[in-house]
């Protein structure tokens, strides 16, 4: 198990739905669960990742940076439980969780 934390400058979209949280995916082999919650972060976005696959920090950074660039979220905390999902699956789950909140 490895824990990773990332914080980045967010984009232009704050969550608008008024929902307290949104969840996408499940913790199962090659899959992951993403919990997205609105949080006052002064325009930034935060990611707390628990993953069974260690040593993939660069891959996480690449997937998260791409997600922020595409979807432009701000003031959201993403809590992630990962069971060795490949990058495109992580991307899909981040998008799905964000769409539940935006």
């Amino acid at each position, binding site marked *: 198990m490895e824990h990773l934390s990332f914080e980045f400058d967010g984009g232009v979209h704050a969550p608008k739905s008024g929902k307290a949280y949104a969840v*996408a995916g499940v913790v199962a082999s090659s899959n992951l669960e993403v919990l997205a919650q609105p949080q006052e972060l002064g325009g930034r976005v935060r990611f707390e990742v628990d993953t069974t*696959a260690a040593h993939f920090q660069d*891959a996480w950074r*690449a*997937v998260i940076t*791409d997600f922020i660039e*595409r979807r432009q979220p701000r003031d959201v905390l993403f809590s992630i439980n990962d069971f*060795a999902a*490949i*990058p*495109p*699956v992580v*991307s*899909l789950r981040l*998008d*799905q969780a964000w*769409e*539940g909140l935006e």
Partner: protein
Amino acid sequence: MSSPDKVARRTEKLARVAKAFGPGKVIPAARTVEFLELILSPGDRLVHEGDNQKQGDFLAEKLAQMDPKKVHGLKLALSCIGLPEHLDLFENGIAEVVDFAYAGPQGGRLAELVGNGTVKIGAVHTYVELIARYFAELRPDVACLVAVDADAEGNLYTGSNTEETPALAEAAAFGGGIVVVQANTLTDNLRRIDIPGEWVDFVIESPKPFHLEPLFTKDPALIDETRILMAMMTMKAIYQKYLPKVLNHGVGFNTAAIELLLPTYGEELGLKGKACTHWALNPHPTMIPAIESGFVEAIACIGGEVGMEDYVASKPDIFPLGHDGSLRSNRFYGQMAGHYADMFVGATLQIDPFGNSSTVTADRLAGFGGAPNFGAENRSRRHLSEAYLRAGAEAHQGEFMPQGRKLVVQMVETFQSANTPTFVERLEAWEAMKTAGFAIPPVMIYGDDVSHVVTEEGVANLLLCRTIEEREQAVRGVAGFTPVGLKRDRTMVANLRDRGIIQRAEDLGIRKSDVSRDRLAARSIHDLVRWSGGLYNPPSRFRNW
């Protein structure tokens, strides 16, 4: 000593058999090895029937038991190196060269035996290419074929999985060769005659029925949301845009997802009756919901599929049925139907930045089967269709001579597994070229034949690329988080996206939260059985209820 004259050699062999076995075409199974040693001379070209589905397993076993002192130096030719015995022939010193199209499960061992010099490869072919050569320079001396039923005159019923049998029998029977058939049953009452007895020299009743692999059965339970996302993007960006009426799907889960989305998402996109009406395809169980929903007018079958017999028999308008009510497939004709179709959608193991793809890797000589015929721009097509003209207008925009274009879609996940990216800077086919001693790398589909590449990241339309640099960036621009994808020129990719050459899900109006297994018309094999009204009878390994 055998005569150099082919017909004289045939006559000589037949006389030898008559002397040892007496008159008649029926050879007792117990004396098969002795019989094979009489009809095969050193250096003969032996065609053995076996493909990705039906296996001539009994004759393969007996061929491998021949005495290499009597029979050696054989040139083996076969659609699929599918059985361990095919390679035993080389280890036993009976065969020395192989011409084939596909090696599937034996691909790993084949690579090893080629590497250590035990097996020499004549060439890797496509199915129709190999069959065509049986009529030209690879004429068989002996063809060992497979039938369901045979009678004492040599008439054959080859059933749902007729596949190659007619072509192989014809090449041998009209080419001075000897035709030998293993049949599951010897009977006086054939339900229909697929091959006339005068083409057949000998029949052997095999002790057990030939093995038939359910290759085209894909369990809907294994279709995950990334595949559904890719399927939805493909249907919106390609099926809805070009409206291909005649098409072929590969064997993978990505196209199975499309098949299961036709009755739901396809209906929403207005595809019914406008696209996907005619297919070159095995009877895929995942096509049942689309057939039941009225999407399909006809399917040209390349082979059969285990468990689909009763369902197929209930659809005489859609499937090619004999007067006896059972399917008649034909690989050569089915491949040709796919070759002249509007669209091919398939997958591969590796793609390079120029769109070249191969299923051959350094340690697996898998071969290509039918993919290069289905998945190649067809320079010999002359009939027109809406899809062909729409694709041609994009590919040949601004040129003096207007032309059509086949749609060749490569639908791949960016990763095969966590550490195995599909997109690679250099295909392992280059390594395989060295190992096998080929003059050029064994490429399955060349980049300039590909019209679209689809991944989880989006759709790249290569028809609209005007330079090789644009094509490279279009491929990198959908290669996701693979090293090839990360090396993209971000400015060029943004430009390609502005021009609609690269389309992301959001450009196509597809929300990721709409990507759900709930959209699949069937979510399990059991659902497929229900759609079929109980007529689909899946093999036991797919029954989990």
